[in-house]
């Protein structure tokens, strides 16, 4: 009967949701602009190598530069070795934690904070001071660089592998394998590893993207890596740096896309956030 209340009532329920959506769209658009403009600008900038016309000449310069190939393949090598070393170190550790010592997981998580508490610039400082005199002269050996890279990447490797092991219920699988008479090496290589393939792949690609673009360790330890090469190019040339940035971005994006696709097949195994700067 009386409709006086409706005059004071707020807009109907649908309107509140619409207002919320309006603001959300705004933040989304602003965020999108902030993130895509630099990417677009970099790409367009990289096409300005030739005066007057858009061309890929900057890319041609980059790919023809012998230093590019040299440093890129060096970083690639380092990445592969780091991945191998990191996996060889962390997979057994993760398996041990899952099977025998769940309490240690918290301890390892504390260690995983160290690369944050001791940023790469400080880490490399310490590594140099410690290993630049006898008896342990590692500072000229690539071992030190790789060790540094493993320090940077082991938290991600561990978390990825650990998540994968938890998803497959490691204990039950290994007990089943054992009851069927398998030795531990058989169990490891034929039962455990194949089932955490996706986690391993995920960890590998994340490590790859960390190592290839890394600057701090490489430049301080004076290695001809891709990061320092890019910095050098940036100092001297104008359009080639943009081309390198595009290439680097595609590599990173590509690696993470591979992880995303691969992890669609696995349970509980996927990429993690963060990186090195």
């Amino acid at each position, binding site marked *: 009967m009386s409709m006086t209340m409706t005059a004071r009532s707020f807009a109907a329920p649908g309107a509140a949701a619409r207002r919320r959506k309006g603001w*959300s769209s705004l933040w*989304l658009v602003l965020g999108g602009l902030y993130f895509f403009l630099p990417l677009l*600008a970099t790409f367009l900038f990289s096409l300005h190598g030739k005066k007057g016309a858009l061309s890929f000449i900057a890319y041609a310069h980059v790919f023809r530069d012998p230093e590019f190939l040299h440093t890129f393949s060096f970083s690639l090598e380092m990445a592969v070795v780091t991945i191998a070393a990191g996996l060889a170190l962390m997979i057994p*550790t993760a398996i041990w934690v899952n099977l025998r*010592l769940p309490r240690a997981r918290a301890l390892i998580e504390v260690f995983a904070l160290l690369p944050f508490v001791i940023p790469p610039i*400080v*880490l490399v400082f310490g590594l140099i001071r410690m290993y630049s005199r006898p008896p342990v002269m590692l500072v000229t050996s690539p071992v030190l660089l790789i060790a540094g890279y493993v320090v940077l990447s082991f938290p991600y490797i561990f978390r990825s592998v650990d998540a994968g092991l938890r998803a497959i219920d490691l204990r039950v699988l290994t007990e089943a394998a054992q009851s069927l008479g398998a030795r531990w090496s058989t169990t490891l290589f034929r039962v455990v590893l194949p089932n955490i393939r996706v986690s391993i792949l995920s960890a590998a690609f994340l490590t790859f993207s*960390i190592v290839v673009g890394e*600057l701090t360790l490489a430049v301080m330890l004076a290695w001809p890596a891709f990061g320092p090469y890019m910095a050098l190019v940036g100092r001297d040339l104008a359009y080639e740096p943009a081309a*390198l940035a595009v290439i680097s971005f595609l590599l990173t994006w590509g690696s993470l896309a591979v992880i995303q696709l691969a992890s669609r097949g696995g349970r509980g195994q996927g990429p993690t956030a963060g990186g090195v700067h």
Partner: protein
Amino acid sequence: MADIGVMGEGARSAPLSLRDKRTPLRTWAGLAPFLLFALLFMILPAGVLLIGSFQDPQGRFTFVNLAHLLRPNILHSYLLTIEVSLVTAVGGGIFGFLLAYAVTLGGMPPGIRGFIVTFSGVASNFAGVPLAFAFIATLGRVGLVTTLLKSLLGISLYDSGFNLYSFWGLSFTYLYFQLPLMVLIIAPALDGMRREWREASENLGARSVQYWRHIALPILLPSLLSSVVLLFGNAFGAYATAYALTGGFINLVPIQIGAQIRGDVLHDPNLGYALALGMVVVMTLTILGYTVLQRRASRFTRS
């Protein structure tokens, strides 16, 4: 046919069996490789720096290096680094929160969230040299946006005082990895905001503002604070981006340390150690703050 396998003594044999009751020491021995690695390449190097910061070049114990930290130049670089980290932490925190809100609770189509999260994963990795180049290509002196603004709108960025290679330019660049990191950290917390709390508050007569003031923000505050603290630490330790963008010409603590390592300045490694120590102290405080606030945040998700 059952292969009884390598059953025997020692922690290395049959490591996958649970039924043996190994003594705790033997069990911890399985972590030996990792612990050794951590010792050799994280703890000891840090220790060397720690000790070195209390020594003079002849190796005698001294507080001189710590006193040198109070030199105006050094103090200024700490302050500057703190400023940059604070600005990008709060800025990245606010805008990252808004973006995360938009894709979780904000009623956007479901596919958008996945895309933003994936992109955030990539963008939080896209730091260092390529990021610096990207921003130079965008907002550098002949960057795309700079020239567009001049040709289309007649606005000259650099004449009005903007400079990419300065505090604000650097901060703006840092946001590129701070913002996505915030999105990734805070999205789970936003997921934990139950729809029923909002409905219950509406049902009881509260307007949107009141809901945020009395319920949502109090619940989210610990997560927000802990994330901002993490972002602070993230920016404080950053070296590559600053180096690539400014060529080492900005007076941040990481840059100072880098200069010490290369002997670019007065060759005083012990000062470098003190700088490094100072940085580690800041980072430790950061991580402690983060952990404490995270514990408080999880109180609400338990109910």
